[in-house]
């Protein structure tokens, strides 16, 4: 059987929308028919369970890694249909041994998920585990500090031979913002999509629901779904194939139209 496709959602700069994207992207992939697991490996400020309003829980990612638990024992099944391994809110940041981490990630790689989406804290906390990912997405906002930081992150991924792409978030199309082309030139990696700033996001966090589910056709939701579609088309075949169908069924014209609208 095919192994899961593992995507690291990352940024060098904090607060650019990693968790927001990771949650909504996972749900969007799920809606395309894939089996998705979302891992909250932000050891500083885990937020996935708050964003999704998950019930209190007794096995967290760190416990699972330390206690060498199985992936199955550690997941929370959510109403959205995705599985989540939540991160533990604690004052002290845990230190994990590379051996425990490796062992756990090996187990994860042997599950039957189509996609493993990993939310992370800013930066690269455990450079050694980069080898477990098929790809890293770098979330940026269209401003200098965020993009300059992204350049450094691209370099680190390139050194680790990890495929990487950029997603622009919170675009407001202001004159002082960097454009998609500016960013693509600066970071010299592909920009997969541009997600607009949307009031729906803070509202969805407040409501503790995924934005893509709260308002399916909002500007934010469409932009995230377009990126999920991209994965359905490019790597979806690795999984059970339902995704390709669902993606194509809904895609086609609408996708093309959205692409045109997006370019304005």
């Amino acid at each position, binding site marked *: 059987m095919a192994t899961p496709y593992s995507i690291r959602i990352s940024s060098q*700069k904090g*607060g*650019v929308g990693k968790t927001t994207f990771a949650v909504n992207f996972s749900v969007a992939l799920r809606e395309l028919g894939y089996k998705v697991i979302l891992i909250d490996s932000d050891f500083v400020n885990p937020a996935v369970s708050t964003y999704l309003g998950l019930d209190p829980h007794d096995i967290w990612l760190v416990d699972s890694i330390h206690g060498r638990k199985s992936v199955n024992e550690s997941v929370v099944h959510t109403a959205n249909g995705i599985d989540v391994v939540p991160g533990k809110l604690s*004052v002290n940041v845990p230190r994990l041994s590379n051996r425990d981490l490796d062992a756990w990630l090996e187990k994860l790689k042997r599950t039957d998920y189509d996609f493993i989406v990993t939310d992370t804290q800013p*930066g690269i906390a455990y450079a050694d585990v980069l080898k477990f990912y098929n790809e890293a997405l770098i979330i940026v906002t269209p401003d200098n*500090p965020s993009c300059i930081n992204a350049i450094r992150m691209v370099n*680190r991924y390139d050194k680790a031979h990890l495929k990487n792409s950029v997603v622009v978030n919170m675009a407001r199309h202001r004159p002082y913002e960097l454009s998609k082309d500016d960013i693509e030139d600066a970071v010299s990696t592909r920009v997969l999509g541009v997600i607009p700033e949307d009031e729906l996001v*803070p509202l969805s966090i407040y409501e503790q629901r995924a934005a893509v589910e709260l308002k399916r056709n909002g500007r934010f939701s469409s932009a995230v779904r377009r990126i999920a579609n991209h994965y359905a088309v490019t790597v979806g075949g690795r999984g059970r194939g339902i995704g390709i169908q669902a993606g194509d069924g809904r895609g086609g014209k609408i996708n093309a139209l959205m692409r045109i609208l997006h370019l304005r």
Partner: protein
Amino acid sequence: MGKVPFGVIVASHKGGVGKTTISVNIAVALKLLGYNVLLLDTDFTDPNIGVHLGLEDTDAGLLALAAGKITASRAISVHAPTGLHVLSCELEGSVAIPKLVYAVRLFNILLRSRYDFIVVDTPPGSFPISIFNKFTRLGKMMALIITTPDTTASTAAIKTAMMFDNANVAHELVINMDRKRRYSISPKEIREAYGKKAIAMLPFDESIPMSIGERIPAVLLKSRSGFSRGIIALAKIVAERAKAIADKDSKTGD
């Protein structure tokens, strides 16, 4: 005993809440109030202050100073429009976090410097507060915990507060990017969670991203905006706090 600089640490566990923006603007505001100010960027992997102020990347900065390779005057850059002093990490080798002994040496140098204020920008998350031990023992330090009015940032802020409590550092809460939305966490709720009222409430302000794009701090670019007025008021509170501590020290005498 000579005068010791007053440290203002700007911190939060949550990323992107405005630490760097607020550090830069408070430092400039204190400078405009006539103080001698050093702005210190302790984001070793991603120094951002230079980008905000339009300073050139340095190849001899904080790391070289901490390693004892260069003098402070060589390591520090000057922001020409204001005369603010800035110490950031060099980009080369910035991936390597400096050793604790380096940090301690750095703070020994800074403690002997002639600044009135050292404003310290930090990366998101916890950091080894022990590097500030000397400042802490002298009581010459306060932390500003930055949050935005939403659940994750506020929860993170409580964590940051616990971290400072454990280290015996006095702290105050600053709410940033307030947009008065129906689903924003109210100041009252935040106060109940944090235990006291926020020291400042800074509005969401369109001119902030613009000022970052222009590389001119908002307090200079739009000195009358709600954000800038909030920052200047905050700088005054910080200055008063520092003065109160200094007065108390001189009374108890050495």
